[in-house]
């Protein structure tokens, strides 16, 4: 658990690390996207401004695509560029390039598009029961572990929970640079992305037979991603590649913030309806029915995968002996929603954790009692039938109660609120997050990693997983070096490049350390065993003729892991990370404003490789979740739409609570997933604390002063 300094730290601090916007090539054109500015309809006419020489511009549209006009995704249904039909604001119509950025931007803003507008849907409720607005089939989990219940003697509660869009708001906007090498029939892409092999596939699809080779490399620095650079880069890279191909010159597209906010993927808005039956005496939840819906936006793209993770996390950290969980994707006329840290789990955890507190109030139990009696313990079954193999969630709960003094504070605040004008509240939540791809995902991916030992005993690591801020390239090197034990500066992860690195899968799903890191560590141990040496540098010194040498290893799933994609029964995730959280809030009844003052976190993420980097993930994830809980929102209807950081309110230093973070079981053999779980739990904790502080039950986010005011005044009617 050593906190080695980050390898990329200093270069980033002083601005020497190159981000995409710092790349420039001779003869390079600036590219940009022309997109639709209505929610739904048809393009009737496009007219270019008269006072520009069209010959100076390179323009590509759907009809210029030599390959297929379909972005490859788990469900490939989104065109790179529209042929005329507009299904969402931000639907790309053209790519345009010009040597001068200023000329390009003024040209684009002077293009006039006439539309025939149609009625648009921009929320999840409008077409709730209309199958025409549902994507695909319902996903279902049916779990019957306990005796059939008699509803007559149980407390029956039905509720609906809503969450809103959330923007990833990586500080570096998305960008791509494409180079076309006609002689070798090759396209090279450099850009901001989490998944170089997805981007390679997308460029191959759009280019078809027009080029023979596509190479994708990430920029040296990637300025944050959080899921936002998982799927949109496919579309962006495809269009940039096509522009470079047509212009025979390098083309760089860097989105401006407003466009990045308006047209790229966001967290799915959700509607989660829960019906539960609880024993009033004991507080035991006997049966529950969860209807989990996500607003996919205009196209499905990767939403079914988000939905899948969502329903598999819908039961939260609780033992629900009888439950039915169904998942639906709704179609709407907003840009397709995509990956964002948590990937369906934050919406699920928000609903179940909020519901637990609501049951507690309804039957006169404390939120803690509800959690104690219903907690998912060792050998309990999850809705997927998967048996819990450890009691670490319970340990997280025990520890959080100790360090936060939750039970006492909950009582004290009741009294405090009677005696004071300003109010206090405390909220307790539990969470779990499955590491790696869902179900058979990792089995199908078959990630492969490569290592090269050179004559000077440098260890070069080749993986497709990117350094986007999470510290992966430092942590992965540390994992390898746990075996080799040479100076850490001699162990380095190379910049992912699809021509050089094997496909170790995308940088998503909390899988980089858990799956790829474990694989690298196994490979390092294997090399050590094969060379029969403890002193790698000495061995290489004595056997110079054998090096440089490459070593590879592929992922092998646990043969006991079995998951049925149809029934959603079996091992949904080989390992779960567990967490417990308590937040304390101050509430100002004059301003209707909640401020989080303290946040305690206890997590089991297994072995901690780099304590500082792990802490950074928790601090950052919690902060994003607090933004989602309290301020962040996207205007969808009418104007002004959210188009900048002025109206998309991100947490600043002033919003930060005191943070207390502890990891348990840090000496475990396995380093489990960490990236996402801190995003999963803080929002319902804030919401539950607000019940105590403001005396209002709000089942949706964000908990803005306006929303609290509305609810308090509604309650008093």
């Amino acid at each position, binding site marked *: 658990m050593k906190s080695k300094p980050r390898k990329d730290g200093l270069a980033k*601090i002083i*601005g020497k690390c190159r981000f995409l916007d710092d790349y420039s090539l001779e003869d390079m054109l600036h590219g940009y996207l022309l997109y639709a500015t209505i929610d739904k309809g048809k393009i009737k006419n496009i007219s270019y401004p008269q006072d520009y020489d069209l010959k100076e511009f390179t323009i590509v549209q759907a009809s210029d695509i030599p390959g297929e006009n379909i972005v490859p995704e788990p469900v490939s249904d989104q065109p790179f560029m529209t042929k005329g039909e507009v299904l969402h604001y931000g639907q790309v119509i053209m790519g345009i390039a010009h040597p001068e950025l200023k000329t390009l931007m003024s040209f684009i803003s002077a293009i006039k598009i006439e539309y025939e507008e149609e009625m648009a849907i921009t929320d999840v409720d409008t077409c709730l029961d209309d199958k025409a607005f549902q994507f695909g089939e319902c996903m279902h989990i049916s779990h019957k572990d306990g005796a059939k219940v008699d509803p007559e003697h149980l407390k029956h509660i039905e509720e609906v929970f809503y969450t809103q869009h959330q923007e990833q708001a990586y*500080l*570096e906007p998305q960008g791509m640079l494409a180079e076309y090498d006609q002689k070798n029939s090759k396209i090279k892409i450099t850009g901001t992305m989490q998944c170089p092999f997805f981007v390679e596939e997308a460029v191959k699809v759009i280019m078809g037979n027009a080029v023979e080779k596509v190479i994708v490399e990430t920029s040296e620095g990637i300025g944050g991603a959080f899921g936002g650079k998982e799927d949109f880069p496919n579309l962006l890279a495809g269009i940039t590649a096509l522009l470079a191909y047509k212009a025979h010159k390098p083309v760089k597209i860097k989105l401006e913030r407003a466009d990045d906010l308006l047209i790229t993927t966001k967290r799915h808005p959700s509607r989660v309806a829960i019906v539960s039956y609880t024993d009033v005496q004991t507080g035991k939840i006997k049966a529950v029915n969860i209807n989990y819906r996500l607003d996919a936006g205009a196209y499905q793209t990767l939403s079914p995968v988000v939905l899948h993770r969502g329903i598999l996390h819908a039961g939260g950290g609780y033992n629900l002996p009888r439950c039915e969980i169904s998942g639906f994707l709704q179609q709407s006329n907003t840009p397709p929603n995509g990956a964002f840290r948590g990937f369906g789990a934050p919406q699920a955890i928000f609903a179940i954790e909020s519901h637990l507190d609501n049951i507690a109030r309804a039957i006169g139990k404390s939120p803690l009692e509800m959690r104690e009696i219903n907690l998912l313990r060792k050998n309990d079954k999850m809705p997927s039938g998967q048996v819990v193999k450890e009691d670490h969630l319970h340990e997280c709960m025990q520890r959080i109660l100790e360090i936060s003094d939750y039970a006492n504070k909950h009582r004290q605040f009741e009294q405090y609120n009677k005696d004071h004008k300003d109010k206090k509240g405390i909220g307790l939540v539990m969470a779990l997050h499955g590491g790696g791809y869902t179900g058979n995902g990792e089995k199908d991916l078959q990630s492969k990693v490569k290592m090269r030992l050179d004559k000077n005993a440098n260890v070069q690591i080749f993986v497709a997983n990117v350094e986007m*801020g999470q510290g992966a390239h430092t942590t992965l090197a540390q994992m390898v070096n746990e075996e080799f034990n040479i100076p850490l500066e001699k162990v380095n992860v190379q910049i992912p490049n699809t021509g050089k690195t094997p496909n170790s899968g995308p940088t998503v799903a909390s899988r980089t350390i858990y799956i790829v890191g474990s694989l690298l560590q196994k490979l390092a141990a294997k090399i050590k065993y094969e060379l029969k040496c403890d002193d790698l540098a000495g061995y290489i010194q004595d056997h110079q003729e054998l090096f440089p040498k490459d070593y590879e290893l592929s992922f092998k799933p646990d043969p006991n892991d079995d998951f049925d994609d149809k029934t959603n029964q079996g091992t949904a995730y080989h390992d779960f990370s567990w967490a417990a959280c308590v937040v304390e809030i101050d509430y100002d009844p004059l301003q209707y404003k909640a401020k989080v003052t303290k946040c305690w976190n206890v997590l089991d993420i297994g072995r901690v490789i780099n304590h500082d980097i792990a802490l950074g993930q928790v*601090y950052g994830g919690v902060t994003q979740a607090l933004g989602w809980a309290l301020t962040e929102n996207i205007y969808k209807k009418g104007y002004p739409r959210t188009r900048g950081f002025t109206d998309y309110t991100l947490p600043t230093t002033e919003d930060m609570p005191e943070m207390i973070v502890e990891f348990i079981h840090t000496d475990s053999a396995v380093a489990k997933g960490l990236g996402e779980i801190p995003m999963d739990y803080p929002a319902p904790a804030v919401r539950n604390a607000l019940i105590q502080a403001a005396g209002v039950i709000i089942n949706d986010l964000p908990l803005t002063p306006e929303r609290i005011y509305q609810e308090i005044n509604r309650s008093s009617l």
Partner: protein
Amino acid sequence: MKINFYLNGKETSIDTDPMRRLLDVLREDYKLTSVKESCGEGECGACTVLLNDIPVTSCLINIIQVDGGSVITAEGISETPLGKLIADCYQETNAVQCGFCFPGFLVTSYHYLANNPDLDEDKIKWALSGNICRCTGYRKIIDAVQLVCRKLADQELNHESI
């Protein structure tokens, strides 16, 4: 139009459109890539530089406004003893994640620490509240600034100059 100013301590002159953003001039003409564009509307602080020793978001400054003045970027600051100390403390606390916002934080932290190296967390939070970071939750950035304060106090005790 000809604009004369000091850039990172050196006198310079540029003939350009007076309404160009300082951000663009620094990035495009002077290749100072520590100055990052993120929001383009003065909200995030990624493009922060010192203009006449005051932190400003260079996306909101027209180049004509710096005529006769002094501009210091993260490149300049990282060459100073205090700038080096701040960078070292960021590194020591492992404060960096994606790093896109960090040159901006370096500039703002430098301004705070050069003028009033106070350990008080609320003062530090206030000083840094114009810089947005989406990765780190700010905790380790604040830790790093506090660490600089302590080191500066130690140095003062040891009569070292910085």
